[in-house]
């Protein structure tokens, strides 16, 4: 499978020359399986740019099909939806798999973003594409999203929860674990079980440890948490993700270097999440 980063930033888009190298768009990652199936994870502002690229292919002709895995509904994970060009082409089929256990509640939350006070679209019903909202099943044997096997787990994220996803394709595995704040005791066994032996673990690395210490209640990981999870789960590659909006490229360079120092001795490779980069698994 091929993983591509369209938005890697946390909380709010951060434009400016100081974020040019890693990128300032909020969370969005695409996964193309070897047999051409598309999964999209999260709908931050990066989704607009993914959508514009997809329009050159089947989605431009109304023949596109994708599953969107949604970790949670905080703004930075849904704010790109209104600008995702494929939803305006009839014939495209999009299925969102999200948190909360109730498709109707999740659909209402997404509708809230389209409310006429806030969006000229007024309602999801003004999308031309088919747009189906479903509740992701957590745990168990998982579910099939656009024909790809996915397992989900609910992580604590401040006062709420966010889903982490494990995607399996032809014996390879990719885990997306953004927006997670572990208890002081560290990641629970069930989280490590989801990450176990993954070829790629993309993990929330919002903060430096010192910044996390003053913002514990927000429900984000430090890069040290990400490294500890990667080591405990014996993953092959760690992808730090969801950098704080105030961090410059130089700050992120430091985070990546620190990660390499921590996980390198365990034989784990570090690949930074950087807008526009692609990773083959």
């Amino acid at each position: 499978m091929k993983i591509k980063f369209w938005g890697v930033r946390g909380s709010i888009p951060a434009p400016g020359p100081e974020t040019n190298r890693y990128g300032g768009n909020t969370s969005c990652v695409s996964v193309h399986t070897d047999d051409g199936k598309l999964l999209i994870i999260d709908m931050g502002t990066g989704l607009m740019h993914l959508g514009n690229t997809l329009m050159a292919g089947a989605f431009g002709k109304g023949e596109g099909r994708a599953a969107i895995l949604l970790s949670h509904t905080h703004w930075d994970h849904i704010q790109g939806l209104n600008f995702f060009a494929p939803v305006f082409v009839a014939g495209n089929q999009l299925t969102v798999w999200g948190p909360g256990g109730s498709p109707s509640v999740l659909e209402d939350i997404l509708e809230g973003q389209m409310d006429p006070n806030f969006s000229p679209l007024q309602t999801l019903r003004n999308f031309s594409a088919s747009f189906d909202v479903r509740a992701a099943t957590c745990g168990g044997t998982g579910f099939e999203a656009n024909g790809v096997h996915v397992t989900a787990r609910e992580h604590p994220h401040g006062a709420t929860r966010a889903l982490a996803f494990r995607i399996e394709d032809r014996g390879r595995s990719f885990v997306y674990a953004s927006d997670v704040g572990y208890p002081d005791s560290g990641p629970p066994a069930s989280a490590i079980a989801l990450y176990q032996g993954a070829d790629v673990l993309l993990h929330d690395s919002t903060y430096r440890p010192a910044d996390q210490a003053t913002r514990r209640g927000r429900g984000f990981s430090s890069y040290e948490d990400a490294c500890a999870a990667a080591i405990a789960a014996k993953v092959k590659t760690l992808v730090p993700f969801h950098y704080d909006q105030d961090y410059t490229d130089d700050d992120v360079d430091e985070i990546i270097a620190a990660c390499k120092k921590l996980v390198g001795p365990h034989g784990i490779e570090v690949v930074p999440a950087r807008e526009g980069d692609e990773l083959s698994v």
Partner: protein
Amino acid sequence: MKVRFWGVRGSIPVPGRTTNRYGGNTSCVEVRPRHEPPIIIDAGTGIRRLGKSLMEQEFGDGKGSASILISHTHWDHVQGLPFFAPLYRSGNQVHIFARQRDMHLEAVFSQQHQGPYFPVPFTELQAEMRFHELIEGAKFDIGSAKITCAQLNHPWVAIAYRVEIDRAAVVYCSDTAPFTDLLLGRDFVEKPVMGTLPPPVRHELDVMRAGVIALAKNADLLIYDTHFTPEEYAVRPHWGHSRPSDAIDIARAAKVKQLCLFHHAPMRSDDENDKILAAARASAEDVSIVSAYEGLELPLGDQ
């Protein structure tokens, strides 16, 4: 006063190398009177950096007061508010002015902070917040600044503001479609029908145009929505945005001293914005034109 631009982009923030010079943040303009608290127009993502800058002043000590004039509540004009640092310091006062909606304004704004969307609910903000609902033709004072309004041609209605203080006037006129082809309101328009307008609609648009010209009359600076090129407008007249030629038309009719192109389309690169500015200047040598970029500061009137 000084007018400073913190966000100049329309629709959605666009980080990246192609927007470094003009900036990728959504709409936010600071009007800073000589001796009075800031009057902020719109709360797009640009307000995050403005908030940080204010925290270095009296807002950091919980002694700040700011007024925010909202043109309308589409996301790109309010999405920065949860990240406006002065809201998280007790003692600060923030007054929000916007057009009256079906729901009370406080309910509209609190939606953005609800649990599914944002971790900090409205009720946990530390600053004292006051909401001021505006009706058509509202006139009011903020300190010694005189504020007047006019209605714009935009889906679900937007309003323009004139702020007069320090012997100068700035007019903020975003977002609006031209007053010629369609009347936009509460209905969702999927595909616009162009053609001859029924006389009552024609009349309503004429009244709206006259209201905007009266609002901008002799202003020192007119900040105007120029989201579209002529080609883009031809395809999307129902999106509620204008072209540079529309802005120039109003600037001439109102005899403003300077016109500022604003609300740049998200996919517009810096080089394209340069060309649009050059073309606008070449087409209207009688009008002084600038194009808004993040960090642009224009002194007006008494300094």
